[in-house]
């Protein structure tokens, strides 16, 4: 059978002002009908360029300079634009990463889908709309006919992604190109969307090219896998064969650098040193050689070709990883075995460096000329937790659950609506509420403001924040040296000379050359910038560091470098971390204890391994089950406890248990009574009416969650959920 999509020796270049980037350099790939081929690689490796080449929608300066792309036997390289327009959207459907920017915000979704149909088929408007209803139904849009008139902004992220898929499917394409279809959505939605793509592929027997940086996504959904590095396919095989017998050192290293469910969190992650090569001037040798552990002189002078072995497993390497029965975890462990074992840190349950008590944050919603308050977004509702000196506490949850707000409350970027933050024994909630610039705040008495400012300044030294986006967290107009010196200048620490010395020392410590101080941020790669961001947060020698999604903006191969660096610095400076992330695997690997946040509530907290292996709250269990794991065996056999629907609005959160609207085991009581906190062993707490395990009274140890829950705060409105101890709540009563 002829493949539906056949790419042979494709070469695509992107011409820039001063150089030409060889984004795709001789890639061959085929996709059969009803088959999903997964294309994995880091950003900048050319995987998206392949997708765009196949629909001939390259960015400005992009040209296909060689090779051929055949869709259903039609050669599209050099095809006239008029004919290409028929193929685009007709024979090939494309699903883009970000549904918000890929849909026209001024057009109802029904019209947008119908437009696609009418461009390609001579049908009446009515027939096109009918087709829109049909495909919307196909992608699982509830009540599709009523939704036709909705505008994209009226839909949630997951529904928008469904509309995008419906649009791509409207003309019954034979090839579907999905470019990172789930990167912009949460892990629970990701599971739903991937399930949908899977179902569509088998129902419609479409050929699908699934482009992703996530090995887990590929492992569960692709029939074949192609790994790209620096514009080339370096390894290609059937999915099971690939994950069972990884041959290329890059693919092996990439897998090993991802924190995996079975990962021993005492060991450092493997990390690929250095950065990918500059594709405007690629080396005439193995492109991975400079970062490869197995590289020899031959690798640095000769270019390996992609060759196939007996099992139709292709790889481009002179020194492939031995083909014994190596499962991915084994690969990870083998590499990790060389890594140093981390010392176990001892933390004292009573020595809390930070105690957050009943944090509440509500944003008023105003309307009308007089800006009357008509409601509020309940971003954080009664969250309490304690963080012990020297430990790493992880906060996980979907986007919009309030975890970032909690971090911002702690460092004083937001003012508390209610509750108390005790840091190092001092109540800092009063400080936190005043530290914002005048956003409608009343004028302060200048003298008082001055002393308060000094207090805040002192506090800031010990409590620092590390930002998510390495591209926006460094001032582009400042040299790195100035950026790093700024905290010292603000705090008035040291002379200029001492400051410069400290900058150089800190750069060395985060793995950069001191010469970096004279450069501008835009000259560095994402990982290097994140190192600079980390260095800046550590300039004041803080005791406590809040890291908000520290690695989610980084490439997979760079992530482990940063995670390892963070752990090293923690050991060296005796830091306490609060890591906020949507990525449960990262949090489990980094954290000693985990808190799970759902819609402004802390639903479960406990030791990382315990929560991960035996979750008590149905939401935690669903979250864990939704994480794609890079192991096709477990991924395919897995019986997923999928979470239905999407995160409800925080303006009118569901009554009782906030998770009940998506919970598989919710009953009437969940809607009426807010669930009490139960204890499930040492330090392990969850609030649920029907926990997944039997609650046990705590064994003497004192849990921060429960204890602080007990503290009465006088000015709290009673309606927003005092936890009432129930019969099994001796934990609460016993304190």
């Amino acid at each position, binding site marked *: 059978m002829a493949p539906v999509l056949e790419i042979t020796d494709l070469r695509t270049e992107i011409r820039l002002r001063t150089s030409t980037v060889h984004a795709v350099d001789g890639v061959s790939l085929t996709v059969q009908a009803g088959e999903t081929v997964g294309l994995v690689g880091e950003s900048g490796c050319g995987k998206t360029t392949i997708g765009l080449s196949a629909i001939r929608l390259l960015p400005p300066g992009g040209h296909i300079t060689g090779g051929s792309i055949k869709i259903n036997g039609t050669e599209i390289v050099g095809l006239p634009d008029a004919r290409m327009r028929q193929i685009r959207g007709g024979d090939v459907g494309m699903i883009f990463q970000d549904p918000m920017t890929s849909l026209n915000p001024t057009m109802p979704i029904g019209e947008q889908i119908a437009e696609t149909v009418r461009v390609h088929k001579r049908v009446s408007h009515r027939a096109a709309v009918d087709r829109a209803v049909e495909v919307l139904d196909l992608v699982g849009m509830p009540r599709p006919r009523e939704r036709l008139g909705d505008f994209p902004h009226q839909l949630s992220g997951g529904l928008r992604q469904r509309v995008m898929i419906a649009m791509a499917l409207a003309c019954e394409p034979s090839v579907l190109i999905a470019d990172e279809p789930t990167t912009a959505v949460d892990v629970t939605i990701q599971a739903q969307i991937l399930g949908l793509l899977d179902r569509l592929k088998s129902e419609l027997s479409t050929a699908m090219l699934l482009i992703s940086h996530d090995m887990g996504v590929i492992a569960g959904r692709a029939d074949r896998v192609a790994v790209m590095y620096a514009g080339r396919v370096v390894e290609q095989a059937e999915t099971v064969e690939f994950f069972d017998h990884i041959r290329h050192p890059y693919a092996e290293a990439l897998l090993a650098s991802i924190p995996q469910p079975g990962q021993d969190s005492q060991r450092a992650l493997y990390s690929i040193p250095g950065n990918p090569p500059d594709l405007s001037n690629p080396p005439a040798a193995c492109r991975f050689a400079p970062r490869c*552990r197995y590289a020899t002189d031959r690798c640095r002078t000769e270019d390996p070709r992609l060759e196939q072995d007996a099992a139709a497993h292709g790889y481009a390497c002179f020194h492939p990883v031995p083909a014994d029965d190596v499962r991915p975890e084994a690969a990870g462990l083998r590499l990790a075995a060389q890594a140093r074992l981390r010392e176990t840190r001892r933390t004292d349950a009573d020595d809390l460096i930070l105690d957050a008590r009943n944090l509440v944050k509500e944003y008023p919603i105003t309307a009308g000329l007089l800006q009357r308050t008509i409601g509020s977004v309940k971003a954080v509702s009664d969250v309490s937790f304690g963080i012990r000196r020297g430990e790493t506490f992880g906060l996980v949850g979907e986007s919009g659950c309030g975890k970032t707000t909690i971090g911002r409350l702690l460092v004083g970027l937001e003012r508390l609506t209610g509750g108390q933050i005790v840091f190092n024994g001092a109540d800092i909630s009063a400080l936190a509420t005043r530290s914002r610039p005048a956003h409608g705040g009343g004028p302060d008495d200048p003298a008082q403001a001055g002393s308060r400012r000094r207090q805040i300044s002192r506090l800031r030294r010990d409590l620092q924040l590390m930002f998510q986006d390495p591209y926006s967290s460094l001032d582009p107009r400042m040299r790195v040296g100035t950026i790093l010196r700024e905290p010292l200048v603000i705090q008035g620490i040291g002379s200029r000379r001492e400051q410069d010395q400290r900058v150089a020392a800190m750069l060395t410590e985060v*793995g950069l050359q001191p010469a970096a101080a004279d450069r501008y941020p835009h000259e560095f790669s994402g990982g290097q910038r994140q190192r600079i961001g980390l260095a800046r947060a550590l300039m004041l020698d803080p005791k406590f560091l809040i890291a908000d999604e520290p690695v989610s903006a980084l490439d997979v191969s760079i992530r482990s470098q940063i995670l*390892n660096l963070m752990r090293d610095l923690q050991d060296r400076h005796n830091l306490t971390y609060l890591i906020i992330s949507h990525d449960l695997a990262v949090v489990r690997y980094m954290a000693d204890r985990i808190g799970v946040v759902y819609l402004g509530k802390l639903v479960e907290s406990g030791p990382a391994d315990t929560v991960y292996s035996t979750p008590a709250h149905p939401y935690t269990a669903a979250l864990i089950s939704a994480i794609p794991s890079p192991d096709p065996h477990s991924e395919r056999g897995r019986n997923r406890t999928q979470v239905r629907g999407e995160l409800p609005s925080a303006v009118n959160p569901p009554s009782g248990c906030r998770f009940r609207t998506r919970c598989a085991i919710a009953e009437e009581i969940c809607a009426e009574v807010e669930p009490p906190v139960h204890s499930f062993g040492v330090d392990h707490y969850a609030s649920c009416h029907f926990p997944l395990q039997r609650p046990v009274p705590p064994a003497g140890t004192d849990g921060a969650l429960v204890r602080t829950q007990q503290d009465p705060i006088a000015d709290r409105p009673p309606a927003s959920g005092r936890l009432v101890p129930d019969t099994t709540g001796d934990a609460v009563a016993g304190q």
Partner: protein
Amino acid sequence: MSDIPATPSAPNQHTADGAVAIGQPLPTAAGTEDGGLDQAMPTGGDTPAGRSAWRLALQSFLDNKLGIAGLVLVIAIVLFCFVGPLVYHTNQISPNAAQINLPPSTRHPLGTDYVGFDVLGRLMAGGQSSIEIGLAVAVVATLFGVLWGAISGYLGGVVDSVLMRIVDIILAIPSIFLFIYLATVFKPTVGLLIVVVSALSWVGPARLVRGEALSLRVREYVQAVRVMGGHSTRIVLRHIVPNTVGTIVVNATFQVADAILILATLSFLGFGLPPPAATWGGMLSEGTNYLYDGYWWAVYPAGIIIALTVIAFNFIGDALRDALEVRLQRR
């Protein structure tokens, strides 16, 4: 596993650095002994050889032909106005009834006007005041407007509302009437014109910068300064204003052109610098009286040089905008 060379992996490099105390020299040879490319490289990878953002922008500006043309033209006009009179001496003070409305000749390359002044010499003299006032207005209006906008945008809330309503009020004043009113009450001087034109021109940059500040204040690097304990003053002056500098520079060039046009308009209406001071707008205004007499040299030279100057500054502004945007979109 047997055929794997025992090259230590990156985590080991971290460990190698592990004992490094602050202030000690660089622990570069991070454990790789086999002579790989990464031998002397810190774990974070190489530090790029530096090219500043400004140099990239300059490069891009120099690639822009229209921008270069504008720059050359502006330099030529400035030389013409300020160096020209040193070479080409003319009488621009006392009228000469014997030389009224002479057509261009070798003695008067662009002829003479209705009171006998040499037109070429008058263009030079008129240009001086136009360029001086234009540049001064651009500087004053930009400085004031940028601060106003940055403070308004960064602080937000009530402050923003008040500051921006003031801007709205100024925008609502019909500027020509205000100029004419002021010119009839006061005797126009270079200083007064600078103040008055600036007073109406700063609202443009103020609005632009406020818009930028609104988006800049939520950037993570601005929040980072707040987490460090930095004041609002520092944030506005060190972070927000420098990051709007692209917009500011581009806008300032257009401001020069606008100010020259406003000045010409005022002079044309008879409310510019009083005679005998030469202005381009005044020359145009007087020349139009003789349009039907065929004295074309009384109108065209002034009209053309006003247009050329404005176009030249606009070319520079456009090229600057492209240059500064390319810096952001590079790659």
